[in-house]
């Protein structure tokens, strides 16, 4: 299957390029003065966070269109995007506390950004559990679409929580009105990392979508 092979190649290339991003981030990007080397976690944490949020927005959009069009391709895409989102969410929820410990002095605090991010991750988990629990394909797609839309509605609150509430979490550095607040060398490293995470998202979704197709074909065979 072409989609599966293309997904595998894109994922493999993404993983190779990730090694390149590691080398650039660790050896060729300056160390931030106040946070020290812990700031370099930013190059993994933020692209993963952007894709955690974007994946859920795409789940929500695909779900809205699915409820109107009843096209199974949209349901398949939503499932694939949710699974990729959970992978990036896992990275966000592990690298965040690892950065927080040396900088804040604590692994975790129940402030708005962290709590809402955890809630978004649990929505992803719930979404996949729901899909696994409902056996009827039509009902599964409809229930999952409703939950997917609810998850997407949470994303703006996650992103704007640092502005709406008093939180420990830093203010947006990249996705904010005005230019990014980063020196050029750091910005280039961030953009390269974001590009690699984008490739990995695309590769994961293509493979997961192809897997759903293969399973459906096997079921109907």
């Amino acid at each position, binding site marked *: 299957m072409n989609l599966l092979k293309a997904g595998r190649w894109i994922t493999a290339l993404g993983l190779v390029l990730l090694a390149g991003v590691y080398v650039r981030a660790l050896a060729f990007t300056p160390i931030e003065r106040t946070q*020290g080397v812990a700031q370099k*976690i930013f190059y993994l944490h933020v692209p993963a966070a952007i894709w955690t949020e974007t994946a859920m927005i795409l789940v929500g959009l695909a779900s809205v269109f699915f409820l109107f069009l009843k096209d199974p391709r949209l349901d398949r895409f939503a499932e694939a995007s949710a699974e990729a989102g959970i992978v990036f969410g896992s990275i966000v929820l*592990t*690298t965040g506390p690892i*950065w927080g410990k*040396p900088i804040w002095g604590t692994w975790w605090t129940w402030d708005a950004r962290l709590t809402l991010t955890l809630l978004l991750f649990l929505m992803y988990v719930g979404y996949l559990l729901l899909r696994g629990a409902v056996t009827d394909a039509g009902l599964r797609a409809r229930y999952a679409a409703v939950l997917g839309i609810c998850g997407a509605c949470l994303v703006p609150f996650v992103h704007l929580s640092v502005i709406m509430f008093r939180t420990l979490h830093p203010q947006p550095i990249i996705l904010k009105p005005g230019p990014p607040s980063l020196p050029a060398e750091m910005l280039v490293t961030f953009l390269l990392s974001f590009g690699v995470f984008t490739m990995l998202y695309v590769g994961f979704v293509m*493979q997961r979508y192809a*897997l759903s197709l293969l*399973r459906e074909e096997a079921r109907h065979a």
Partner: protein
Amino acid sequence: MPENTPYMVAAYIITAVILLAYALLLYRRTLKS
């Protein structure tokens, strides 16, 4: 060695492990199907 280095190393290793593990999981699942 700066004192924050172990945290940074841990974050980089965990990220690579999560991404590699999922890529391998997908590969195995698609091979079986």
